[in-house]
Protein backbone atom coordinates (compact mmCIF):
# COMPACT_ATOMS: atom_id res chain seq x y z
CA UNK A 1 0.00 0.00 0.00
CA UNK A 2 1.38 3.41 -0.96
CA UNK A 3 1.44 6.05 1.72
CA UNK A 4 2.05 9.37 0.10
CA UNK A 5 1.05 12.97 0.35
CA UNK A 6 2.09 16.50 1.00
CA UNK A 7 1.41 18.83 3.92
CA UNK A 8 2.06 22.52 4.49
CA UNK A 9 3.27 23.29 7.99
CA UNK A 10 3.27 26.86 9.36
CA UNK A 11 6.80 26.54 10.77
CA UNK A 12 10.34 26.74 9.41
CA UNK A 13 12.02 23.43 8.43
CA UNK A 14 14.22 23.69 11.52
CA UNK A 15 11.22 24.15 13.82
CA UNK A 16 9.29 21.39 12.07
CA UNK A 17 12.29 19.09 12.39
CA UNK A 18 12.51 19.74 16.14
CA UNK A 19 8.81 19.08 16.61
CA UNK A 20 8.91 15.85 14.60
CA UNK A 21 11.83 14.65 16.73
CA UNK A 22 10.26 15.60 20.06
CA UNK A 23 8.84 12.52 21.83
CA UNK A 24 6.24 14.63 23.67
CA UNK A 25 4.97 16.08 20.39
CA UNK A 26 4.92 12.67 18.71
CA UNK A 27 3.02 11.12 21.64
CA UNK A 28 0.46 13.91 21.41
CA UNK A 29 0.07 13.69 17.63
CA UNK A 30 0.13 9.96 16.83
CA UNK A 31 -3.54 8.90 16.83
CA UNK A 32 -4.27 6.30 19.49
CA UNK A 33 -0.81 6.56 21.06
CA UNK A 34 -1.12 5.35 24.66
CA UNK A 35 2.56 5.42 25.56
CA UNK A 36 5.84 6.35 23.90
CA UNK A 37 9.13 5.29 25.50
CA UNK A 38 12.49 6.44 24.09
CA UNK A 39 14.71 3.53 23.10
CA UNK A 40 17.97 5.15 22.16
CA UNK A 41 18.53 7.98 19.71
CA UNK A 42 15.61 8.53 17.36
CA UNK A 43 13.94 5.28 18.33
CA UNK A 44 10.81 4.73 20.40
CA UNK A 45 8.76 1.87 21.68
CA UNK A 46 5.04 2.66 21.68
CA UNK A 47 1.66 1.30 22.61
CA UNK A 48 -1.13 2.11 20.22
CA UNK A 49 -4.86 1.67 20.16
CA UNK A 50 -5.96 2.11 16.58
CA UNK A 51 -9.01 1.24 14.57
CA UNK A 52 -12.35 2.54 13.60
CA UNK A 53 -15.68 2.29 15.45
CA UNK A 54 -15.88 -1.06 17.30
CA UNK A 55 -13.08 -2.55 15.17
CA UNK A 56 -10.08 -1.44 17.13
CA UNK A 57 -7.09 -3.19 18.55
CA UNK A 58 -4.06 -2.68 20.73
CA UNK A 59 -0.67 -2.80 19.08
CA UNK A 60 2.88 -2.86 20.39
CA UNK A 61 5.00 -0.78 18.11
CA UNK A 62 8.45 0.43 17.34
CA UNK A 63 9.17 3.74 15.59
CA UNK A 64 12.57 4.73 14.36
CA UNK A 65 13.90 7.81 12.62
CA UNK A 66 16.43 6.49 10.12
CA UNK A 67 18.99 8.26 7.93
CA UNK A 68 18.39 11.70 9.46
CA UNK A 69 19.66 14.67 7.44
CA UNK A 70 18.59 17.55 9.68
CA UNK A 71 16.55 19.53 8.87
CA UNK A 72 15.59 18.28 5.41
CA UNK A 73 15.07 14.51 5.25
CA UNK A 74 14.62 11.28 7.19
CA UNK A 75 12.95 7.93 6.85
CA UNK A 76 10.25 7.00 9.31
CA UNK A 77 10.35 3.29 10.05
CA UNK A 78 7.29 1.87 11.83
CA UNK A 79 6.53 -1.65 13.01
CA UNK A 80 3.49 -2.57 15.03
CA UNK A 81 2.07 -5.88 16.08
CA UNK A 82 -1.12 -6.92 17.82
CA UNK A 83 -3.50 -9.84 18.14
CA UNK A 84 -5.34 -8.65 15.04
CA UNK A 85 -2.42 -8.17 12.70
CA UNK A 86 0.75 -6.28 11.98
CA UNK A 87 1.90 -3.13 10.24
CA UNK A 88 5.30 -2.36 8.77
CA UNK A 89 6.05 0.91 7.01
CA UNK A 90 9.04 2.75 5.64
CA UNK A 91 8.19 6.30 4.81
CA UNK A 92 10.85 8.69 3.43
CA UNK A 93 10.02 12.24 4.47
CA UNK A 94 11.37 15.48 3.01
CA UNK A 95 11.09 18.96 4.50
CA UNK A 96 11.45 21.97 2.22
CA UNK A 97 11.25 25.59 3.25
CA UNK A 98 8.69 27.56 1.29
CA UNK A 99 8.15 31.18 2.30
CA UNK A 100 7.50 31.30 6.04
CA UNK A 101 6.49 27.66 6.20
CA UNK A 102 7.56 24.17 5.33
CA UNK A 103 6.27 21.70 2.79
CA UNK A 104 6.49 18.15 4.11
CA UNK A 105 6.39 15.43 1.44
CA UNK A 106 6.05 11.76 2.35
CA UNK A 107 6.16 8.94 -0.15
CA UNK A 108 6.55 5.43 1.16
CA UNK A 109 4.91 2.07 1.47
CA UNK A 110 3.16 0.23 4.27
CA UNK A 111 2.39 -3.42 4.60
CA UNK A 112 -0.58 -4.57 6.66
CA UNK A 113 -1.02 -8.26 7.39
CA UNK A 114 -2.81 -10.74 9.57
CA UNK A 115 -6.49 -10.96 10.43
CA UNK A 116 -7.24 -7.26 10.00
CA UNK A 117 -5.83 -7.31 6.46
CA UNK A 118 -7.93 -10.30 5.45
CA UNK A 119 -11.17 -8.88 6.75
CA UNK A 120 -10.66 -5.14 6.66
CA UNK A 121 -8.84 -4.96 3.32
CA UNK A 122 -11.56 -2.82 1.73
CA UNK A 123 -11.08 -0.13 4.33
CA UNK A 124 -7.37 -0.17 5.18
CA UNK A 125 -6.21 2.41 2.63
CA UNK A 126 -9.01 4.77 3.61
CA UNK A 127 -8.42 4.31 7.33
CA UNK A 128 -4.68 4.91 6.81
CA UNK A 129 -5.57 8.17 5.09
CA UNK A 130 -7.81 9.20 8.00
CA UNK A 131 -5.12 8.35 10.59
CA UNK A 132 -2.49 10.30 8.62
CA UNK A 133 -4.89 13.26 8.43
CA UNK A 134 -5.44 13.11 12.22
CA UNK A 135 -1.67 13.09 12.77
CA UNK A 136 -1.08 16.22 10.69
CA UNK A 137 -4.10 18.02 12.14
CA UNK A 138 -2.73 17.33 15.62
CA UNK A 139 0.72 18.51 14.51
CA UNK A 140 -0.78 21.73 13.15
CA UNK A 141 -2.44 22.27 16.55
CA UNK A 142 0.91 21.72 18.27
CA UNK A 143 2.50 24.31 15.98
CA UNK A 144 -0.32 26.79 16.63
CA UNK A 145 -0.02 26.23 20.40
CA UNK A 146 3.75 26.84 20.38
CA UNK A 147 3.94 30.62 21.04
CA UNK A 148 1.75 30.22 24.13
CA UNK A 149 4.11 27.61 25.56
CA UNK A 150 7.31 29.65 25.15
Amino acid at each position, binding site marked *: *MDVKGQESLPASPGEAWDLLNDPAVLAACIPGCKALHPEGKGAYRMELEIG*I*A*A*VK*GRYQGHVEIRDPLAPTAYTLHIEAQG*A*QGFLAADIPIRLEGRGEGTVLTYDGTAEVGG*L*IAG*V*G*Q*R*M*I*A*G*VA*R*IITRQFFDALARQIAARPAST
Partner: protein
Amino acid sequence: MKPAPFAYAAPASFAEAQRLLAEAGGDAKVLAGGQSLVPLLNMRLARPDLIVDINRIEGAATITEDGGRVRIEALARHHMAESSPLVTSKVPLLAEAVAQIGHVDIRNRGTLVGSVAHADPVAEIPAVMTALNGEVEVLGSQGSRLVPASEFFVTYLTTALAPDEVATAILLPALPPMTGTAFVEFARRHGDFAIVGVACQISLHPDGGIREARIALAGVSDTPFRARGAEVELVSRGLGAVPEAVAAVREEIDPESDIHAPADYRRHLAGVLAKRAIHVAARRARGEAA
Protein backbone atom coordinates in the same frame (compact mmCIF):
# COMPACT_ATOMS: atom_id res chain seq x y z
CA MET B 1 -13.83 -18.98 16.21
CA LYS B 2 -15.24 -17.65 19.43
CA PRO B 3 -15.79 -14.07 20.55
CA ALA B 4 -13.93 -12.49 23.43
CA PRO B 5 -16.05 -12.57 26.62
CA PHE B 6 -18.84 -10.00 26.82
CA ALA B 7 -21.81 -9.27 29.06
CA TYR B 8 -25.22 -9.82 27.48
CA ALA B 9 -28.52 -8.03 27.98
CA ALA B 10 -31.85 -8.54 26.21
CA PRO B 11 -34.02 -5.54 27.08
CA ALA B 12 -37.78 -5.56 26.47
CA SER B 13 -37.97 -1.96 25.21
CA PHE B 14 -35.87 0.60 23.35
CA ALA B 15 -35.94 2.84 26.43
CA GLU B 16 -34.32 0.05 28.44
CA ALA B 17 -31.84 -0.63 25.61
CA GLN B 18 -30.91 3.05 25.55
CA ARG B 19 -30.40 3.10 29.35
CA LEU B 20 -28.12 0.04 29.13
CA LEU B 21 -26.05 1.76 26.43
CA ALA B 22 -25.77 4.92 28.56
CA GLU B 23 -24.69 2.89 31.61
CA ALA B 24 -22.08 0.98 29.58
CA GLY B 25 -20.32 4.27 28.83
CA GLY B 26 -19.42 3.68 25.21
CA ASP B 27 -18.22 0.10 25.15
CA ALA B 28 -21.44 -1.62 24.15
CA LYS B 29 -22.82 -2.76 20.79
CA VAL B 30 -26.42 -3.24 19.76
CA LEU B 31 -27.22 -6.65 18.27
CA ALA B 32 -30.08 -6.74 15.75
CA GLY B 33 -29.66 -9.21 12.88
CA GLY B 34 -25.99 -9.70 13.68
CA GLN B 35 -24.91 -10.29 10.08
CA SER B 36 -22.05 -7.80 10.37
CA LEU B 37 -21.53 -7.64 14.12
CA VAL B 38 -21.31 -11.37 14.86
CA PRO B 39 -18.49 -12.06 12.35
CA LEU B 40 -16.59 -9.08 13.82
CA LEU B 41 -17.11 -10.52 17.32
CA ASN B 42 -16.12 -14.04 16.31
CA MET B 43 -12.95 -12.81 14.66
CA ARG B 44 -12.32 -10.67 17.75
CA LEU B 45 -11.97 -7.58 15.61
CA ALA B 46 -14.67 -6.08 17.84
CA ARG B 47 -14.43 -6.67 21.60
CA PRO B 48 -17.28 -4.79 23.26
CA ASP B 49 -17.86 -5.25 26.99
CA LEU B 50 -21.61 -5.50 26.52
CA ILE B 51 -23.97 -6.74 23.82
CA VAL B 52 -27.46 -5.24 23.94
CA ASP B 53 -29.66 -7.69 22.05
CA ILE B 54 -32.80 -5.87 20.85
CA ASN B 55 -34.41 -8.96 19.27
CA ARG B 56 -36.74 -9.48 22.27
CA ILE B 57 -38.36 -6.06 21.86
CA GLU B 58 -41.98 -6.69 20.86
CA GLY B 59 -43.65 -5.01 17.90
CA ALA B 60 -40.52 -3.38 16.50
CA ALA B 61 -40.45 -5.14 13.13
CA THR B 62 -43.15 -3.28 11.24
CA ILE B 63 -43.04 -1.45 7.91
CA THR B 64 -45.70 1.25 7.77
CA GLU B 65 -46.72 4.32 5.82
CA ASP B 66 -46.23 7.50 7.83
CA GLY B 67 -47.42 10.62 6.02
CA GLY B 68 -45.52 10.75 2.75
CA ARG B 69 -42.87 8.42 4.09
CA VAL B 70 -42.31 4.75 4.67
CA ARG B 71 -41.14 3.90 8.19
CA ILE B 72 -39.10 0.75 8.71
CA GLU B 73 -38.51 -0.31 12.30
CA ALA B 74 -35.31 -1.65 13.80
CA LEU B 75 -36.22 -5.35 13.68
CA ALA B 76 -37.62 -5.43 10.13
CA ARG B 77 -35.47 -7.97 8.25
CA HIS B 78 -34.23 -7.38 4.70
CA HIS B 79 -36.53 -10.12 3.44
CA MET B 80 -39.57 -8.33 4.90
CA ALA B 81 -38.75 -5.20 2.89
CA GLU B 82 -37.99 -7.25 -0.22
CA SER B 83 -41.43 -8.88 -0.08
CA SER B 84 -43.39 -5.87 1.20
CA PRO B 85 -45.96 -4.49 -1.30
CA LEU B 86 -45.67 -1.13 0.47
CA VAL B 87 -41.90 -0.94 -0.10
CA THR B 88 -42.18 -2.23 -3.66
CA SER B 89 -44.77 0.42 -4.58
CA LYS B 90 -43.62 3.39 -2.47
CA VAL B 91 -39.83 2.94 -2.28
CA PRO B 92 -38.96 0.71 -5.26
CA LEU B 93 -35.32 1.82 -5.08
CA LEU B 94 -35.08 0.20 -1.66
CA ALA B 95 -36.84 -2.98 -2.83
CA GLU B 96 -34.40 -3.35 -5.72
CA ALA B 97 -31.39 -2.65 -3.50
CA VAL B 98 -32.43 -5.04 -0.73
CA ALA B 99 -32.78 -7.91 -3.20
CA GLN B 100 -29.06 -7.53 -4.00
CA ILE B 101 -27.85 -7.89 -0.41
CA GLY B 102 -25.79 -11.02 0.26
CA HIS B 103 -27.74 -14.27 0.17
CA VAL B 104 -31.22 -15.37 1.27
CA ASP B 105 -29.99 -16.47 4.70
CA ILE B 106 -28.43 -13.08 5.31
CA ARG B 107 -31.59 -11.29 4.18
CA ASN B 108 -33.76 -13.45 6.44
CA ARG B 109 -31.83 -12.34 9.48
CA GLY B 110 -30.13 -9.01 8.73
CA THR B 111 -32.03 -5.77 9.36
CA LEU B 112 -32.22 -2.56 7.34
CA VAL B 113 -31.70 -0.34 10.36
CA GLY B 114 -28.72 -2.50 11.39
CA SER B 115 -27.13 -2.04 7.97
CA VAL B 116 -27.57 1.72 8.28
CA ALA B 117 -26.13 1.80 11.83
CA HIS B 118 -23.17 -0.37 10.75
CA ALA B 119 -22.43 2.20 8.01
CA ASP B 120 -20.32 0.07 5.70
CA PRO B 121 -19.77 2.47 2.76
CA VAL B 122 -20.13 -0.35 0.24
CA ALA B 123 -23.48 -1.58 1.60
CA GLU B 124 -26.74 -1.11 -0.30
CA ILE B 125 -29.11 0.43 2.27
CA PRO B 126 -26.78 3.31 3.25
CA ALA B 127 -26.52 4.20 -0.47
CA VAL B 128 -30.31 4.23 -0.81
CA MET B 129 -30.64 6.33 2.36
CA THR B 130 -28.11 8.79 0.91
CA ALA B 131 -29.73 8.96 -2.53
CA LEU B 132 -33.17 9.68 -1.06
CA ASN B 133 -31.84 11.56 1.99
CA GLY B 134 -33.87 9.31 4.25
CA GLU B 135 -33.87 9.86 7.98
CA VAL B 136 -32.72 7.77 10.91
CA GLU B 137 -34.87 7.81 14.04
CA VAL B 138 -32.56 7.75 17.03
CA LEU B 139 -33.37 7.33 20.73
CA GLY B 140 -30.97 8.90 23.22
CA SER B 141 -30.95 10.18 26.81
CA GLN B 142 -32.66 13.39 25.67
CA GLY B 143 -35.44 11.56 23.81
CA SER B 144 -35.97 10.77 20.16
CA ARG B 145 -34.50 12.68 17.20
CA LEU B 146 -34.40 12.35 13.43
CA VAL B 147 -31.04 12.51 11.67
CA PRO B 148 -30.98 13.01 7.88
CA ALA B 149 -28.75 10.57 5.99
CA SER B 150 -26.60 13.50 4.80
CA GLU B 151 -25.56 14.02 8.44
CA PHE B 152 -25.69 10.42 9.63
CA PHE B 153 -22.78 8.78 7.81
CA VAL B 154 -19.47 10.11 9.15
CA THR B 155 -16.79 7.71 7.90
CA TYR B 156 -16.10 3.96 7.69
CA LEU B 157 -18.39 2.17 10.16
CA THR B 158 -18.92 5.47 11.97
CA THR B 159 -22.18 7.40 12.25
CA ALA B 160 -23.67 10.36 14.07
CA LEU B 161 -25.06 7.90 16.66
CA ALA B 162 -23.70 8.79 20.10
CA PRO B 163 -22.52 5.87 22.29
CA ASP B 164 -25.72 6.15 24.37
CA GLU B 165 -28.07 6.19 21.35
CA VAL B 166 -29.90 3.39 19.59
CA ALA B 167 -31.34 3.63 16.06
CA THR B 168 -35.02 2.68 16.23
CA ALA B 169 -36.22 3.15 12.64
CA ILE B 170 -35.45 4.57 9.22
CA LEU B 171 -37.82 6.76 7.21
CA LEU B 172 -37.73 7.05 3.44
CA PRO B 173 -39.75 9.43 1.25
CA ALA B 174 -42.43 7.83 -0.92
CA LEU B 175 -41.93 7.79 -4.69
CA PRO B 176 -43.04 11.08 -6.32
CA PRO B 177 -45.14 10.99 -9.54
CA MET B 178 -43.40 10.47 -12.91
CA THR B 179 -40.40 9.01 -11.17
CA GLY B 180 -38.28 5.96 -11.86
CA THR B 181 -35.53 4.30 -9.85
CA ALA B 182 -32.71 1.84 -10.37
CA PHE B 183 -30.15 0.17 -8.13
CA VAL B 184 -27.27 -1.50 -9.96
CA GLU B 185 -24.11 -2.97 -8.50
CA PHE B 186 -21.23 -5.12 -9.58
CA ALA B 187 -19.68 -7.88 -7.49
CA ARG B 188 -17.29 -10.52 -8.74
CA ARG B 189 -19.38 -13.31 -7.26
CA HIS B 190 -23.08 -13.40 -6.51
CA GLY B 191 -23.66 -12.41 -2.89
CA ASP B 192 -20.26 -10.76 -2.35
CA PHE B 193 -19.91 -7.20 -1.23
CA ALA B 194 -20.20 -5.03 -4.32
CA ILE B 195 -17.11 -3.35 -5.73
CA VAL B 196 -19.27 -0.37 -6.71
CA GLY B 197 -23.03 0.17 -6.45
CA VAL B 198 -25.24 2.99 -7.75
CA ALA B 199 -28.64 4.10 -6.43
CA CYS B 200 -30.52 6.41 -8.79
CA GLN B 201 -33.90 8.12 -8.79
CA ILE B 202 -35.04 10.30 -11.71
CA SER B 203 -38.19 12.47 -11.67
CA LEU B 204 -39.49 13.89 -14.96
CA HIS B 205 -41.50 16.94 -15.98
CA PRO B 206 -44.54 16.20 -18.17
CA ASP B 207 -42.51 17.53 -21.16
CA GLY B 208 -39.81 14.89 -20.55
CA GLY B 209 -37.25 17.17 -18.92
CA ILE B 210 -35.66 16.10 -15.67
CA ARG B 211 -37.25 17.66 -12.58
CA GLU B 212 -34.97 15.98 -10.07
CA ALA B 213 -32.09 13.50 -10.16
CA ARG B 214 -30.73 11.69 -7.14
CA ILE B 215 -27.61 9.57 -7.47
CA ALA B 216 -25.60 7.93 -4.68
CA LEU B 217 -22.66 5.56 -5.00
CA ALA B 218 -21.44 2.76 -2.75
CA GLY B 219 -17.82 1.63 -2.69
CA VAL B 220 -16.11 4.83 -3.83
CA SER B 221 -15.60 6.71 -0.55
CA ASP B 222 -15.55 6.33 3.24
CA THR B 223 -19.28 7.06 3.28
CA PRO B 224 -22.01 6.58 0.66
CA PHE B 225 -21.30 9.27 -1.93
CA ARG B 226 -23.95 11.63 -3.32
CA ALA B 227 -22.97 12.50 -6.90
CA ARG B 228 -24.27 16.06 -6.89
CA GLY B 229 -22.22 17.13 -9.89
CA ALA B 230 -23.87 14.45 -12.02
CA GLU B 231 -27.31 15.38 -10.66
CA VAL B 232 -26.79 19.01 -11.68
CA GLU B 233 -25.73 17.97 -15.21
CA LEU B 234 -28.90 15.92 -15.64
CA VAL B 235 -31.33 18.48 -14.21
CA SER B 236 -29.85 21.41 -16.11
CA ARG B 237 -29.27 19.67 -19.44
CA GLY B 238 -31.70 16.75 -19.56
CA LEU B 239 -31.27 13.12 -20.52
CA GLY B 240 -29.10 14.08 -23.47
CA ALA B 241 -26.42 14.92 -20.91
CA VAL B 242 -25.85 11.37 -19.66
CA PRO B 243 -22.23 11.36 -20.97
CA GLU B 244 -21.57 14.62 -19.09
CA ALA B 245 -23.21 13.18 -15.95
CA VAL B 246 -21.03 10.05 -16.23
CA ALA B 247 -17.94 12.25 -16.63
CA ALA B 248 -19.04 14.26 -13.59
CA VAL B 249 -19.35 11.07 -11.51
CA ARG B 250 -15.83 9.98 -12.47
CA GLU B 251 -14.55 13.49 -11.74
CA GLU B 252 -16.10 13.94 -8.31
CA ILE B 253 -15.25 10.58 -6.75
CA ASP B 254 -11.86 9.70 -5.24
CA PRO B 255 -11.93 5.92 -4.66
CA GLU B 256 -9.25 3.88 -2.86
CA SER B 257 -7.34 0.88 -4.21
CA ASP B 258 -7.49 -2.48 -2.46
CA ILE B 259 -6.96 -6.17 -3.30
CA HIS B 260 -10.38 -6.31 -4.96
CA ALA B 261 -9.95 -3.45 -7.40
CA PRO B 262 -7.58 -0.55 -8.08
CA ALA B 263 -8.89 3.00 -7.80
CA ASP B 264 -8.91 3.53 -11.59
CA TYR B 265 -11.03 0.46 -12.13
CA ARG B 266 -13.51 1.62 -9.45
CA ARG B 267 -13.67 5.03 -11.12
CA HIS B 268 -14.35 3.47 -14.51
CA LEU B 269 -16.92 1.06 -13.09
CA ALA B 270 -18.71 3.88 -11.25
CA GLY B 271 -19.28 5.64 -14.58
CA VAL B 272 -20.47 2.47 -16.32
CA LEU B 273 -22.93 1.64 -13.54
CA ALA B 274 -24.13 5.25 -13.21
CA LYS B 275 -24.91 5.36 -16.93
CA ARG B 276 -26.84 2.09 -16.68
CA ALA B 277 -28.74 3.25 -13.59
CA ILE B 278 -29.68 6.63 -15.12
CA HIS B 279 -31.03 4.99 -18.30
CA VAL B 280 -33.04 2.37 -16.42
CA ALA B 281 -34.47 4.93 -13.95
CA ALA B 282 -35.42 7.29 -16.83
CA ARG B 283 -37.18 4.51 -18.74
CA ARG B 284 -39.10 3.54 -15.60
CA ALA B 285 -40.00 7.20 -15.00
CA ARG B 286 -41.56 7.25 -18.48
CA GLY B 287 -43.51 4.13 -17.57
CA GLU B 288 -41.60 1.93 -19.99
CA ALA B 289 -40.36 -1.52 -19.07
CA ALA B 290 -36.74 -1.30 -17.96
